[in-house]
């Protein structure tokens, strides 16, 4: 891995390792090494470097909440903001535990798009009415409740 113009340049093996752990991060260094035809110590060294340099941001887990009897609704909230306040609105939204993602979008107006989670529609509305609408700079809010997820994948490394 080499740093050039603040961007890390990975070699073919780094990419293959990333792809392997993206598909199944529970694999051992030996299993990945066997698949790729390299020593497990090589895999270990490469992964440690990727972690140290922040290419691998975190190791996490995808939990099936419905198996635990936890039901919740997800919504996409589009917040129209006063351009002068948009950074502050985005920061405030990011601090809320109900908000899973916050992105800025520049279309005809400056928008903040956020993914929100709540136990039910009442809780969702209450959060938006009490915590989001009162934030300085919020002009309007449009919310779509997601009723069915057809596909959800992370970007898959193709190299």
């Amino acid at each position, binding site marked *: 891995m080499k740093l050039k113009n603040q961007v890390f340049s990975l070699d073919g093996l780094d990419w293959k390792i990333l792809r392997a752990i993206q598909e199944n991060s529970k694999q051992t260094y030996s299993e990945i090494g066997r698949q790729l035809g390299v020593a497990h110590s090589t895999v270990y060294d490469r992964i440690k470097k990727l972690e140290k340099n922040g290419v691998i941001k975190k190791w996490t887990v995808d939990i099936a909440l419905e198996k635990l009897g936890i039901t919740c609704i997800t*919504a996409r*909230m589009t917040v*129209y903001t006063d351009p002068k306040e948009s950074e502050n609105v985005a920061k405030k939204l990011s601090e809320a535990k109900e908000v899973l993602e916050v992105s800025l979008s520049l279309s005809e107006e400056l928008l903040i798009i956020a993914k929100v989670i709540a136990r039910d*529609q009442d809780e*969702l*509305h209450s959060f*938006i*009415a*009490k915590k*989001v*609408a*009162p934030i*300085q700079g*919020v*002009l*309007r*809010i*449009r*919310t779509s*409740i997601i009723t069915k997820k057809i596909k959800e994948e992370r970007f898959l490394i193709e190299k």
Partner: protein
Amino acid sequence: MTPSSSARILRTLSRKNAFYFFTSVGNYTGHRAMSLEEFANKIREVETASLEFHLYRGDFEKWADEVLEDREITERISAVKLLEPIGNALRDQLDFTVTKRLEELKTLNS
């Protein structure tokens, strides 16, 4: 009712305690009322869909009771709800009810 209690109901509220008008779950219109007087004005401005959404959820009564702390207007709004008005009939009835109460409070306060 004393002038001080009417003044309290007529006070200007913080952003946190303002009434925010939505048309459905999570869809905020951009209209908010930071006092009873602003609330009366907004009833004439917002879409009737927003008035219907809040009236039948009990949001107006909750705000009037818990934030403005005016039992009288809370009961009058409940009475409007019992008539099940929709559209402009709802707007007219709410406008009449809230404006009348606003005038009573202003008179008491003067």
